[in-house]
């Protein structure tokens, strides 16, 4: 009886897997179809007349290498910035005692929930006054405003025995050396997985870059993809799917390599 019940739950879960994954399968398969085939045999998973023409058309219409480089550069800036600022702040919260610590931590962490529209106008004005429109730095700087890193690094630091840090501290080793030579090596798996999460999120970021990047040569992949979609119909779906397929390669590779670490870090973000 219980066995039957268990397997009927599996059917439900497998249906969910299909619903979640079929769009991805269709995306990849349609990117190798001609426009005609994508219309007439849209549910055919293996294309009838497989073709690379969408990819080559795409290569003629946009500067793919430049798009990938812009996206990569911006995501790297954001990721490194968040890791460095997050690690430093987490170290201070964990190992230093100072007045108002509780309040400062509370303010830092609360900012995670502030919707972007609340700060969007002043941030836009600051970035445009600083002459950073159309630049990766202009996209990256306001995005560093994210205390998730502090929260996650603090949780990771819980795993380091505090007696170890105290012992080296008493030996008179300066704290930047403790951070660099002891904390960072121990936290390596956490840093990699948290960095991977930051990188993927920033790679996919759309809203803030659309405000800052107006010049086509500064576009990132999501902005370029947006140009291929319009609500009025007439969208060339196979082309859009080819660009989407190119766009997912990097996040998917990162996920395949660090999957276990990434899921662990996501899990720990919900625990106190």
């Amino acid at each position, binding site marked *: 009886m219980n066995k039957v019940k268990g397997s009927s739950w599996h059917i439900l879960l497998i249906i969910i*897997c299909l619903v979640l994954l079929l769009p991805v399968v269709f995306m990849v398969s349609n990117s190798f179809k001609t426009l005609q085939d994508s219309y007439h045999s849209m549910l055919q998973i293996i294309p009838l007349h497989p073709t690379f023409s969408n990819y080559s058309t795409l290569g003629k219409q946009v500067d793919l290498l430049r798009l990938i480089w812009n996206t990569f550069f911006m995501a790297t800036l954001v990721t490194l910035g968040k890791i*460095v600022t997050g690690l430093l702040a987490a170290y*201070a919260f964990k190992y230093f005692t100072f007045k108002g610590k509780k309040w400062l931590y509370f303010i830092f962490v609360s900012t995670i929930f502030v919707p972007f529209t609340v700060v*969007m106008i002043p941030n836009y004005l600051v970035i445009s006054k600083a002459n950073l429109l159309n630049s990766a730095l202009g996209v990256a700087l306001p995005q560093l405003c994210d205390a998730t890193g502090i929260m996650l690094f603090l949780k990771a630091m819980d795993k380091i025995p505090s007696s170890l840090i105290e012992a080296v501290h008493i030996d008179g080793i300066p704290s930047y050396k403790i951070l660099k030579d002891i904390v960072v090596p121990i936290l390596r798996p956490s840093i990699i997985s948290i960095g991977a999460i930051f990188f993927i999120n920033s790679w996919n970021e759309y809203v803030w870059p659309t405000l800052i990047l107006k010049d086509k040569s500064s576009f990132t992949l999501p902005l370029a993809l947006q140009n291929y979609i319009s609500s009025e119909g007439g969208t060339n779906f196979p082309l859009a799917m080819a660009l989407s397929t190119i766009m997912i390669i990097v996040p998917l590779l990162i996920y395949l390599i660090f999957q276990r670490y990434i*899921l662990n870090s996501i899990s720990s973000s919900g625990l106190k």
Partner: protein
Amino acid sequence: MNSRSSKKNKFLTFAYLAPTAIILLVFMIIPIIYTLYLSFFDWNLIAPTKDFVGLENYISIFTDPVNQKVLLNTVFYIVLLLVLNFLIPYFISIVVKFFIGKMQSSYKIIFFIPSLFSLVVGAMLFSWIMNPVSGPIAFFMRQLGVSLPNWTNSGAMAIVVLCLMTNWKVFGYNFVLLLTGLGSVPQNIIDATKMDSIPKWRMIWDIVLPLNKSIAFYVLILTIVQGLQYVFTPISVITQGGPYYGSSNVLYHTYLNAFVLYKTGNASALAVITFLIFLVLLYLEIKFVEGRADRYE
């Protein structure tokens, strides 16, 4: 410690916190105050002068029918997001935790995959799948003799489809968070109910759900705050808030006022109202998610 080293410590604390503090000050704290300031002015983002108008921007939010429609839509969005992105993943995480034995981690790995995609890709894929003329769903429904209504013509239907686009992305992420929470319920409590042969659903309802309240509430708040921001991308890519503001919400309307209509004052007032909603949610979070705020007492 002697006074020299404590002075040094003070300096170090400052040096370590400074990068984060400066960024938060420049791109978060000061902007919040400046948005509040702008909400009392009539401005177009470019003109050298701003006209002080007092509370006029706020009055217009609550009297203008378009703004009212947008606020109402926001409520509809929140309800839908709670069902799609919170209740359903919660139910599925309970099923995976307590009703199946094997393959828990395989489901986790697969469910998470859509989270890797940009919402722009999600929006594009679902506008293809749900295309009322040439999409797969329309194709299936035609076989059954019904036609898929053109959802872009109806605000309510558009909102449902836009929420489904974010659901595809967020489902696995929230599932992982909630499953972790369920995993932290002590096993001995669960074993004890097994020995007393208490039915599973009772055990979940009476013991697991109350014990898991804190993380569930965290995900609930996250679903609202993040969900309204996530849904911004499909709105912007697919409907631009249409038809006639039917699928707009308070965040998209803020953006529209600020960067399309250049009504900076209106946009700022809407942003301040969004911020107030956020403060209420934050208060609820502190109240219900015990121990989170006073971690560093």
